[in-house]
């Protein structure tokens, strides 16, 4: 009797397995647009200074979750993880790089904003991102409002630059080009706080005991893949690829691969949970 039951269970799980296989089959991607296909490889813009999303590891190789997303799309599109040309983009030059056709998509910590939507098309969001501030360990700044009348370091063209301009215009800003310039300037005391994506700051704070996070999230926004305007077929392909990554549980795998366990929960939430509410 017990034997029959377990046989039945096995049959059931085999069926379930089949069902899963069938489901995965349903995730097949739309045809690759001719313009992309004819290039023979995927030209993707990723960040090189934004661990754990996009950065270069100690040996100078492209690394990070978003980099893996780009490689995955190339694998699906061209059948090989080598069929990709990765380009380092910055907050400031990423949209010009895309619209100047240097790259065909951006997976580059690109937050969805109305200003950007005017010049590029966004895929569906693949994660959310919030902002935070990094300050010196002994800084009197404990919450967001404490920076009133102080100097805040930020990157040109960043979500935070826009947010401060709209929300706290009285805050003095020091706007620099790269995250490393900003960090250097914070440590040299050229500003009282350095604001950036929380995800980036968490990594820095975990490594550097002289700094701490303020910990009040603000300017929560969706991150999405950017493609040029009026490339509907390509956008549809990217959207389908993002769905497939989600369905196959790839984000969790990449988060585990690139992010140390002690800071992992934030990133797991960002990729898999709905975004929280904040200012």
């Amino acid at each position, binding site marked *: 009797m017990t034997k029959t039951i377990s046989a039945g269970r096995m049959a059931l799980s085999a069926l379930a397995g089949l069902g899963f296989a069938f489901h995965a089959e349903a995730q097949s991607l739309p045809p690759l647009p001719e313009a992309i296909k004819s290039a023979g490889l995927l030209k993707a813009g990723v960040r090189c200074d934004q661990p754990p999303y996009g950065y270069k590891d100690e040996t100078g190789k492209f690394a990070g979750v978003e980099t893996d997303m780009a490689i995955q799309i190339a694998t699906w599109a061209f059948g090989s993880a080598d069929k990709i040309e990765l380009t380092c983009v910055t*907050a*400031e030059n990423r*949209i*010009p790089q895309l619209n100047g056709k240097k790259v065909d998509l951006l997976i580059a910590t690109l937050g969805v904003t109305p*200003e*950007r939507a*005017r*010049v590029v098309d966004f895929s569906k969001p693949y994660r959310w991102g919030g902002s935070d501030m990094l300050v010196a360990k002994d800084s009197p700044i404990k919450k967001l409002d404490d920076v009133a009348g102080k100097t805040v370091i930020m990157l*040109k*063209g960043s979500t935070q*630059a*826009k947010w401060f*301009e709209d929300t706290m215009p009285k805050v003095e800003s*020091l*706007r*620099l*080009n790269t995250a490393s*310039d900003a960090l*250097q*300037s914070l440590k*040299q*005391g*050229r500003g009282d706080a350095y604001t950036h994506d929380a995800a980036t700051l968490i990594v820095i704070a975990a490594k550097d005991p002289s700094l701490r996070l303020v910990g009040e999230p603000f300017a929560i926004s969706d991150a999405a893949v950017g493609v040029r305007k009026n490339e509907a077929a390509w956008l549809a392909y990217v959207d389908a690829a993002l769905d497939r990554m989600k369905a196959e549980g790839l984000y969790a795998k990449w988060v585990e691969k690139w992010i140390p366990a002690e800071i992992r929960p934030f990133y797991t939430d960002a990729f898999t949970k709905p975004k929280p509410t904040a200012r």
Partner: protein
Amino acid sequence: MEFDFGYLAAQWPALMRGLWLTIQVSALSIVLSIAVGLCGAAVRVLQVPVLDKVVVGYVEVIRNTPLLAQLFFIFYGLPGLGLRLSLFWSGVLSLTLWAGAYQIENIRGGLETVGKGLREAAFSLGLSPWRFFRLVAAPMAVRVGLPSMLNTSISLLKNSSYLQAIGLAELTFVAIDRISMDFRTIEMFAAICVIYLALVLTLSFFASRLEYRLNTPFRT
């Protein structure tokens, strides 16, 4: 995307604030670099012991390294040595040091044209080397060197755009900062090019007036 004059009009106050900072930092640096040039050239021509070697070294270092590297050294490097200058003064210092090296050579070039005879005449009249430099050689050298000094000053004015890299909110910074938010690339770069052009033409105009005035004694 067509050219949007309305957008430029909206950004005009920000551009003017940037322009004002560009003018301040450039004007100050031009004056200081000419002072550096005069002192350095005097040291070279009067062959002040030790110092003249220092000046030669300074000119070579500045002329043979990129301005951007010098700027980053001053802004990010000097604090490590205990000297933390503000954005503005980091900018003035780097532009002054950069242009100063060229001004030394410009003025020294002018001094080369002051003939040996004049020098001997001055000394035989009992002028000290310093008074000879101040009363005879320098005024003549500046006249001759003026066009190349103007060249260097124009370069300095244009190179002030490098200061956007350290976050000084001068003209180019304003343009790049706005572009990174609003993506009006053509409007902003066209606007700052026109403004730089107007600035340089103004500078050239005053320099040619000065040249005319300085040449008064030689006109018949």
